[in-house]
């Protein structure tokens, strides 16, 4: 019996089959919708701006033109893109008249709670480790910029500005850890989570809570309290994710 098991082709394993299964086209469409939608919400793509041509954009994003067309259709349905035909035509960014908050809720609805939980796990791993390493590798002058960013959060007026400053704090924390990889990952993660955080940071009370958490991360980093810095960094991120999930469950 044992021998039979031993010679069994490993290719029959379910996990292995999954590796070589065609990449889910639906997931790619959703990834493109999310990427372009977030960029529009964050103002990285301006109202009225013309998107590159279909084949060029598909090439830049590394997806097929079929996938891109499906994504553009979804964005049209969300009212974030309009397409004009003929001479001078193409796809254009269009911010719909409905309030930003409502559009952001639509974006949040595009995330399952499981995806949000996983996003939070990834983020906590990045920011927790960054805080721990920063506590080991930082001397007081390195913390000046983090302090400025923590203070800026108190001054930022609207939710979008607060979200940008929130994200920058975590990028700067990764830079204070002296890790280019953690920093790159954090920058990439913030492009995903930034639009969603706008939904939380309009609330002045929560903004104050985040600022307080950021200050305790800085204190722990300054004291060289590695584990405490990690805990503070993770707690800040987990709290935000928990709020996003709670909000998602009301939609």
């Amino acid at each position, binding site marked *: 019996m044992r021998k039979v098991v031993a010679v069994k082709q490993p290719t029959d394993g379910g996990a292995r089959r999954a590796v070589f299964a065609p990449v889910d086209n639906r997931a790619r469409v959703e990834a493109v919708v999310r990427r372009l939608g977030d960029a529009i919400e964050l103002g990285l793509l301006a109202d009225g701006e013309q998107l590159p041509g279909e084949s060029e954009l598909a090439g830049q994003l590394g997806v097929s033109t079929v996938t891109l067309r499906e994504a553009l259709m979804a964005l049209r349905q969300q009212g974030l893109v309009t397409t004009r035909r003929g001479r001078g035509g193409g796809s254009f960014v269009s911010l719909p008249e409905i309030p930003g908050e409502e559009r952001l809720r639509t974006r949040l609805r595009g995330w399952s709670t499981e995806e949000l939980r996983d996003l939070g796990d990834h983020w906590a791993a990045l920011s927790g480790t960054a805080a721990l390493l920063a506590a080991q*590798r930082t001397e007081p002058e390195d913390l000046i910029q983090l302090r400025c960013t923590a203070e800026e959060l108190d001054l930022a007026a609207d939710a979008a500005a607060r979200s940008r400053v929130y*994200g920058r704090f975590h*990028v700067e924390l990764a830079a204070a850890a002296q890790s280019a990889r953690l920093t790159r990952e954090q920058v990439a993660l913030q492009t995903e989570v930034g639009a969603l955080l706008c939904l939380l940071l309009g609330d002045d009370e929560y903004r104050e809570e985040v600022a307080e958490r950021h200050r305790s991360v800085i204190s722990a980093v300054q004291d060289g309290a590695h584990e405490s810095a990690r805990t503070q960094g993770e707690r800040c991120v987990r709290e935000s994710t928990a709020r996003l999930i709670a909000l998602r469950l009301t939609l």
Partner: protein
Amino acid sequence: MSRSPGLVGAVTTTLDVTAEERVAAQIGRWLEAVFHAVAQTRADTAALLARVAEERRRPATVDLAGLRPGLHARLAREELVSGVGFVAVPGLLADVPAWLEWWQTNAEGDVRPLAPDLDPDRSAYSDYTHWDWFALPRDTGRRAVAGPYVDYLCSEEYSLTLSAPVRVAGRFAGVAAADVYLRHFEAAALPLLRELPGPAHLVNARGRVAASADPAHLAGSLTRGPDFAAVLEHGRVETFEGVRLVPCRGVPLVLVVPATTAGTVARATSAR
């Protein structure tokens, strides 16, 4: 290179001293070559801005395009340099609030301009004036070495940035600068560090390790204890709790080696 052993007879250890100082000097020369690229950029920029001032108008981004041939040549010529350019003080240019005329060599070896989003309504990273490579030359009026640090504005690389202030008619106009990625710096420095008898590493003025042949002191970590800034200021070899600190002449890096491999000389130094 002016110091000589205080005691006759320390011949063998004198060789060690020579080796350490030779390594420190060589590293200093490499960074001097990078500073040369910075100085050329600074001179080009100052001349260009002075010409525009003579025409009684404010400079614009289109004027800075005149720097490009020189910047491209420096990227091609200086092996250690992966990014080079001029960073304007906000408000200098007539057509944009802030600007980096910055060119980089990408992973494929192509020369590309950096186009960061500097609109404060969209980007959290629009203000670049707090970075050491900008603030140090502005505040001291002198050239500076920033880093090692994670450069999340331009390259997303762990880097050293060498920079110098550009002044026009006595006013600060911005900085000329060049990026050296730390992995390239290490590739150059490591063979030299490994020639030394004991585990050696290089730190900046704040004790941050820039290159290391010592697994106990990795790049990016802090070496705590010695006042490295003071060593650089004094410009001579000093000892501190079992390590010798050798300043790299002209650049703010200190070579740290165990004192035990050159114990006789350490004693000779303190006896002088």
